[in-house]
């Protein structure tokens, strides 16, 4: 499979403060991230809030510049690209945000929102063509009859409808890659699935590649069953592998803890779970990370002198299934 996006040793640090009268602090949001996404693949990035998954999404979409490392788009570093090349990349990668309320400009109609990129990038030549293209897009995202939606303002639409407009907007430039950042988590339960199905149909019909960022393991499983999953914890990838392997045979203690912790919409299944006892309930702050493995201060399998000393390496235990845990060090 051709690799569409590749991240090599990506780190992203943020500094806060640093005014004339405020102290400077460094937040190590991402450190040493390596991953690659093949064309037409679905890659799910799961983890809890603050683990750096949204930052990863923004880095891949070219909205943030990494502190160090390379982001390759078809093998080329995007931050070393020429102007034209960068433009092609930028248009090929689009982003769908979590909050359908803040991702549409409240003072623009659906028509304005969709026509601006179409006209600006000369995807359509005339106003008539533009209207045609917009109806086509609205039909793809199931906002029909088109006349009912095209001149509406965002506040006149429901959450699910807005998210469909957001998706239609992402499709205006015929992208190859969509970063879906918690794209359904703010929607009502009865709406979520229909948006997920819409995204799946895009993959099927347009051979679209997805980075699906979510904290909802069940959604990741449903959406990304055919693809890969990456589990993040405090700015590091702790486990990567094909979705069925990771979810059915988790290797990293954190992944295991997550899977055992997540409540499920099935009384018998959820009540028969044996929950993993963690050594600490609280997530450490990014300003004060534990040494060695970042999960070491909570991990019940922690081996003193090893886990809290060495940065874990990434081990490939099964083909394509990697884990960053020193406890597997001997097995390889």
């Amino acid at each position, binding site marked *: 499979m051709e690799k569409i996006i590749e991240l090599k040793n990506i780190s992203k640090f943020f500094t*806060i*403060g640093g005014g004339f*009268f*405020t*102290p400077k602090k460094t937040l190590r949001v991402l450190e040493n991230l390596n991953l690659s996404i093949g064309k037409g693949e679905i890659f799910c990035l799961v983890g809890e809030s603050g683990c750096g998954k949204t930052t990863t999404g923004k880095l891949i979409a070219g909205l943030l510049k990494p502190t160090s490392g390379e982001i390759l788009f078809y093998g080329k570093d995007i931050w070393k690209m020429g102007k034209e090349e960068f433009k092609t990349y930028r248009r090929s990668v689009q982003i769908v945000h979590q909050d359908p309320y803040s991702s549409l400009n409240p003072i623009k109609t659906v028509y304005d929102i969709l026509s601006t990129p179409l006209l600006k990038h000369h995807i359509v030549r005339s106003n008539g063509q533009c209207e045609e293209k917009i109806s086509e897009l609205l039909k793809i995202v199931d906002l029909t009859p088109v006349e009912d939606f095209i001149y509406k303002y965002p506040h006149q639409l429901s959450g699910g409808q807005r998210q469909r407009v957001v998706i239609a907007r992402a499709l205006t430039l015929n992208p190859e890659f969509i970063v879906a950042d918690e794209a359904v988590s703010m929607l009502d339960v009865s709406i979520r699935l229909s948006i997920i199905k819409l995204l799946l149909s895009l993959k099927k019909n347009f051979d679209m590649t997805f980075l699906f960022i979510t904290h909802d393991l069940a959604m990741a499983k449903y959406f990304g069953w055919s693809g890969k999953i990456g589990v993040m914890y405090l700015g590091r990838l702790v486990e990567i592998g094909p979705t069925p392997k990771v979810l059915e045979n988790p290797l990293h203690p954190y992944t295991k803890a997550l899977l055992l912790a997540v409540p499920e919409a099935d009384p018998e299944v959820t009540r028969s779970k044996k929950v993993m006892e963690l050594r600490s309930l609280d997530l450490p702050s990014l300003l004060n990370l534990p040494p060695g493995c970042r999960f070491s201060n909570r991990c019940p399998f922690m081996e003193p002198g090893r886990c809290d000393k060495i940065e874990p390496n990434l081990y490939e235990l099964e083909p394509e299934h990697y884990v960053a845990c020193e406890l597997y060090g001997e097995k390889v």
Partner: protein
Amino acid sequence: MVRIYNTLKRISKNVILRRFIKSIFTIFVVVSLTFFIIRLMPSNPIQIYINQLISQYGMTYKEAEALAASLFSIDLKKPLILQYFDFLKNLFRGDLGISFLSRGTKVTSIIKEFLPWTLFSVGVSLLISFTLGIIIGMFIAYKRGSSIDVIITSIASILSSIPNYLIGIMILVFVGVQWKLIPIEAMRGSLSPGVKPGFTWTFIKDVFFHASMPILTYVISTIGGWILTMKSSTLSTLGEDYVMVAKARGLKESRITFSYVGRNAILPLFTSLTISLGFIVGGSVLIESIFVYKGIGWVLWSSISSRDYPVMQGVFLIITVSVIMANLLADLLYSRLDPRIRITGGE
């Protein structure tokens, strides 16, 4: 190097110290600004004064220049930047120069004589209008939508939009002239002749007698603003989750009103307090001139009208410094009241 860095780091961690340094910096900027305005303006006052001395008293240029230099405590022959350093040095020693008009009077002694009256009248009125405004504002927030709320809100919004000096003139015109309820002529000045300062009933009565109209003006012109700000702040606090949870916890109404709503609703008013302070003190130039209440604002006006530049410069500086200091005080008070600021420094 490392030690300096560590010291700086410690300083920057301490909010109060940080605010203090910021105030000092602001004062420094204002001082420099004042110096350069006076020295660099197209109509340089020192030059004007020298010309004036030459034409009025027939002095030679040298004599006039020497006299002017001594009044400003500045050696005019030095380059500008050295003059600036001298000026700073003198300032640090508490020397602000000598008045043009009443020769021999030090600017510092003028400030000493007039500043207390302004601080007193402004302070008292701020205390009155802030307290009353908070109480009334909170009261109408609780009664929102009722007719009393509508009436008070309208009055407050009218009062807050009329310039304070117009309120002063109206008081003068109606209470003093048209209805003759007060002896405005006798109320001029800051103290009646013959009254000796001291902790006596006569003195206190006389002080309030003279300050009453400026205070009344300040209170009327600022109370509307406090009422409206407190009302909206209370309304938004009433919508906070912790107030709802407090009700769910079955807390007594009085406890919720004072500790939960009141205390949190007042916090944002401290930001307005700092702005309001500058505004009132600045407005004292107008109000004191209207009532001929002899405070620092009146001195500023009369020094401007008579082009008494050293006094003008000194008084402007002292007004600014008092406002900055008062701001610092309000900031410190605020950080005492809000634990979020006290500990983390607002991050």
